[in-house]
């Protein structure tokens, strides 16, 4: 029997679930449901040929079939068909009678006023979810050595619906959350041909990808009286690339590696489809042709010039050229220019050097330095060009450059002790291009003044310190423990508005112990982060006192600074054990995992008021947000495995899972909610009595659940 080229196994099981409430969160990427399940695998392995197929859950939303095979040393291939859901939120409700369709309408007689009464909403209950069906394969030809060729292709299809905010054309303050359909397909084909020897490697790759969106445009009737309107989704697009990668072994145990690539992404959109109900506006071109190119070049030289020293020099260049159309918006009556789109290019150049020296058999040091320069440019149509010097970055998206040093130490002084320590320092500079001097007390100049005091966090001047230390311990045989501590501190230098400080500490412990077949394992993680930001509130439309946009100016009710300190404390731990009850017959595995996140938004405001227009003193504690992505997640799993024979086995399992979510933005739905007593989540928001400005659908309010899962699985191996 041992000589049979066939082997494999099948499994069949049954599952029962007791769940407190329907929750997408329980099955975020799965389709765990009561009933039967099964799957198996088959392996053929004889002489030079091999083949394997593995699959499970056929007919369900999370099935998979994976095959691979080939002839050793000559070729190999794989094929796969997989599907899985992405469940976002269940049992949501919509003001539209046909949520998830491409044309969404209101019920007969529905008005914004009547919509306040939830009983008049359509009774439709729907789920926000979509499935991802992926089918593909690879083929790798090895028999033409030293040449090689491989090709892969796949098609990914998504179907379903996601929550989407549809702002009202009638008033920008009004908005409706609707179920936007997802119906798109991405097809990718890639191929590589090359040559490889011990000395040299050269590979040419190319690929083509195209994306088609079957639900590119969504029309909806504005509940706030704006008539029929439209959302423009992702456009059909295609992308291709050409790439060369080569390496060469050189003297001094050196290796030179080089890669150069070109990628072009293109899309075409008929602009007349993208919007309705914009009276009096035409565009300079009937359609938009998107065209973004990526040019990449990278090279590095690694050397081992003498016994204990290794070095690396590297260079990278990325040029993102946006050659898309610029589109002018024109007043169709007067011909006046109303505005245009703004496109962005950037080029990043990076050079660096690293050296690693082994001082002793147990001690190694690594030093590294990297400089990178990122230039950002924006361009509009000639009519829309507002920058006198197109080579100068505009305020808000400056050029940045970074100097980064790092030092690492790897020290394994004892058989049972290993250590790793890394420190990294980063300085980022930015060309802050202040706008023209303006009067901070002039309401018309307020935004320009604010721009003078803020830097976008991703392009701001910054100093960053990072430390990471790791201890690997094996104090006794079969006991492995790893301890890790990581620290990161970001200081946004010279920042007045926006992020100005961020910090993170993370402590991790991971361990396992094997005591004569009885295994114990455990994990602990504590991650705490906080981010400080400052913002200036400026109300330019109110009655006196006049606002002053400068954050350095004294506050008044129409202009003041406020700070928020955002903190997240996340800790997780888990422990488990697996042990034999009867050797080679009966074994048991049990595991418990817990995770808790506690987030807060601690506010400090220069000017305390319940409403910026009504300067009433307010207790600062009322500003702070406490439930801020707070959650608790825990699970218990226990499995008893009984090997009846060498071929046949049974498994009995129990899993308990719990998730509790508490958040100020998305509180749980109060089942007793009526228009008169509104607690918890709001489907309808009314900024003032008798008015409605927002219609939500309940997205993500279903996160809490308790679930007990029981299963039994029989498995036969041959």
């Amino acid at each position, binding site marked *: 029997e041992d000589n049979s080229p066939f082997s494999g196994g099948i499994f069949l099981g049954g599952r029962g679930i007791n769940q407190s409430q329907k929750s997408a969160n329980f099955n975020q990427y799965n389709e765990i449901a009561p009933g039967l399940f099964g799957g198996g695998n088959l392996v053929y392995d004889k002489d030079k040929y091999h083949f394997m197929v593995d699959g499970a859950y056929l007919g369900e939303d999370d099935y998979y079939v994976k095959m691979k095979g080939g002839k050793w040393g000559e070729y190999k291939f794989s094929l796969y068909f997989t599907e899985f859901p992405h469940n976002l939120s269940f049992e949501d409700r919509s003001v539209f009678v046909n949520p998830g369709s491409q044309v969404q309408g209101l019920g007969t007689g529905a008005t914004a006023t009547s919509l306040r009464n939830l009983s008049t909403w359509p009774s439709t209950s729907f789920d926000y979810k979509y499935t991802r069906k992926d089918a593909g394969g690879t083929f790798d030809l090895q028999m033409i050595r030293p040449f090689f060729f491989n090709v892969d292709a796949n098609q990914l299809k998504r179907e379903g619906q996601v929550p989407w905010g549809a702002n009202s054309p009638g008033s920008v303050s009004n908005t409706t959350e609707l179920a936007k359909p997802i119906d798109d397909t*991405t097809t990718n084909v890639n191929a590589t041909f090359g040559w490889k020897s011990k000395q040299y490697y050269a590979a040419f790759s190319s690929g083509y990808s195209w994306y088609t969106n079957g639900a590119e445009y969504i029309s909806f009737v504005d509940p706030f009286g704006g008539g029929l309107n439209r959302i423009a989704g992702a456009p059909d697009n295609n992308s291709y690339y050409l790439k060369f990668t080569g390496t060469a072994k050189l003297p001094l145990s050196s290796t030179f590696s080089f890669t150069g690539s070109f990628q072009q992404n293109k899309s075409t959109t008929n602009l007349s489809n993208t919007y309705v109900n914009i009276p009096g506006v035409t565009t300079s071109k009937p359609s938009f042709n998107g065209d973004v190119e990526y040019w990449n070049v990278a090279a590095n030289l690694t050397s081992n010039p003498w016994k204990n020293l290794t070095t690396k020099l590297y260079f990278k260049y990325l040029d993102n050229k946006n050659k898309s159309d610029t589109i002018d918006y024109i007043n169709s009556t007067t011909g006046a220019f109303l505005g245009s789109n703004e496109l962005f290019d950037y080029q990043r150049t990076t050079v660096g050097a690293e050296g690693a020296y082994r001082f002793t058999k147990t001690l190694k040091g690594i030093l590294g330095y990297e400089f990178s320069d990122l230039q950002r440019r924006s361009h509009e149509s000639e009519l829309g060009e507002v920058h006198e010097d197109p080579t100068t970055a505009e305020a808000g998206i400056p050029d940045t450059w970074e100097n980064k040093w790092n030092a690492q130490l790897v020290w394994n002084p004892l058989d049972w002790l290993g250590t790793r320590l890394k420190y990294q320092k980063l300085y980022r500079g930015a060309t802050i291009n202040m706008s023209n001097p303006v009067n901070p007390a002039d309401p018309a100049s307020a935004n320009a003044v604010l721009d003078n005091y803020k830097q976008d966090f991703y392009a701001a001047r910054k100093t960053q310190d990072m430390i990471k230390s790791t201890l690997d311990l094996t104090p006794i045989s079969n006991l492995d423990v790893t301890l890790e501590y990581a620290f990161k501190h970001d200081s946004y230098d010279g920042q007045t508005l926006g992020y100005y400080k961020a910090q993170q500490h993370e402590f991790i412990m991971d361990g396992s112990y094997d005591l004569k077949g009885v295994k114990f394992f455990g994990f602990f993680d504590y991650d705490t982060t906080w981010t400080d930001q400052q913002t200036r509130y400026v109300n330019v439309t109110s009655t006196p006192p006049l606002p002053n946009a400068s954050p350095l100016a004294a506050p008044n009710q129409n202009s003041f600074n406020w700070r928020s300190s955002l903190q997240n404390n996340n800790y997780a731990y888990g422990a488990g054990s697996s042990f034999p009850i009867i050797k080679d017959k009966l074994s048991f595995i049990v595991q418990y995992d817990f995770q808790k996140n506690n987030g807060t938004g601690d*506010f400090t405001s220069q000017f305390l008021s319940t409403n910026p227009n009504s300067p009433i003193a307010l207790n600062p504690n009322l500003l702070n947000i406490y439930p801020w992505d707070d959650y608790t997640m825990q699970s218990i799993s226990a499995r008893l495995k009984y090997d009846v024979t060498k071929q046949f086995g049974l498994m009995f399992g129990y899993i308990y899972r719990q998730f509790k979510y508490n958040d100020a933005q998305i509180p749980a739905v109060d089942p007793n909610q009526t228009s008169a007593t509104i607690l918890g989540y709001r489907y309808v928001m009314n900024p003032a009595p008798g008015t409605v400005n927002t219609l939500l659908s309940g997205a993500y309010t279903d996160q809490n659940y308790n679930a007990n899962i029981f299963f039994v699985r029989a498995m036969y191996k041959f």
Partner: protein
Amino acid sequence: PSGVLAQAKRGGATFVGVDACKECHEDRFKAYAASVHGKKVVPDNPANREGCESCHGPGSLHVDQGGGKGVGGMITFNKKENSDMRSAVCLNCHENSTQLALWDSGVHKKKDVSCSDCHSIHSGPKTATGYGTGMAPMGYLPGPEYVTCGKCHLDIKAAINRRSHHPIVEGRITCSNCHQPHGSMGPAQIKADSVNQLCYKCHADKRGPYMNEHPPVGENCAYCHLAHGGVHTALLTEKVPNLCQGCHDATRHPGTRYGADTMFTGGLIGGSPSNKAFGRSCLNCHSNIHGSNAIGSPGGDFFIR
């Protein structure tokens, strides 16, 4: 024999053959024999050379001295052994692998990670199956990829288990879908020249190109999203609206104080929270935040269409 094995022979050891190894290491031998390394039909395989000693070195001294871990100069692939030496044993046959073309450039080699730290050739299952997980161990890894990688990348192991994560622990994607552990010239050993070019492979709807661009989006997805997992919805680095306020402060609502008093409980402003902060906050209106092809202002340019 490779340079490493030749070095091992310097102590005077000679090859003793697989039968001698089998006498004491039967389980190990069986696993080897069942693996591709044990197939004689594959040219240059250990089975066509010195068998076990092709990798572990000549064993005569080991046998003469009565065996034992490392006794007689055997290469045991223990982590205490020099990582370059351990990798050299594997590279002796696998150096021509196209997967390893950029091994010298990669961070794993620099950090003394060797092949045997991840691959366990004696435990490579002949009949690999995930039994319902879709995570059949591949490439002689002892378990699912994320478990193997998570042994060193503890922070990533923690991240992929947070509430908002890519479906890695569910087995829908693997570490090597995005990373090339054997060396790459991209950042973080990703399988693309830049972060966005990698993300677009699965998220082609974000590829555009869009008429109205949101500058950080086209530059680097990682400015706003975590790759592995986090505590905020959609793997965001910070909660909305605070994330948006990291760049946006203007006279309209971006500068408004979104404290608990005015924005969420609504108890102090007429009984209703603000639609700028409640629910999905900024995304209640600015849904097309990755880019828009809609005309109009405010429209596509503010990503509300």
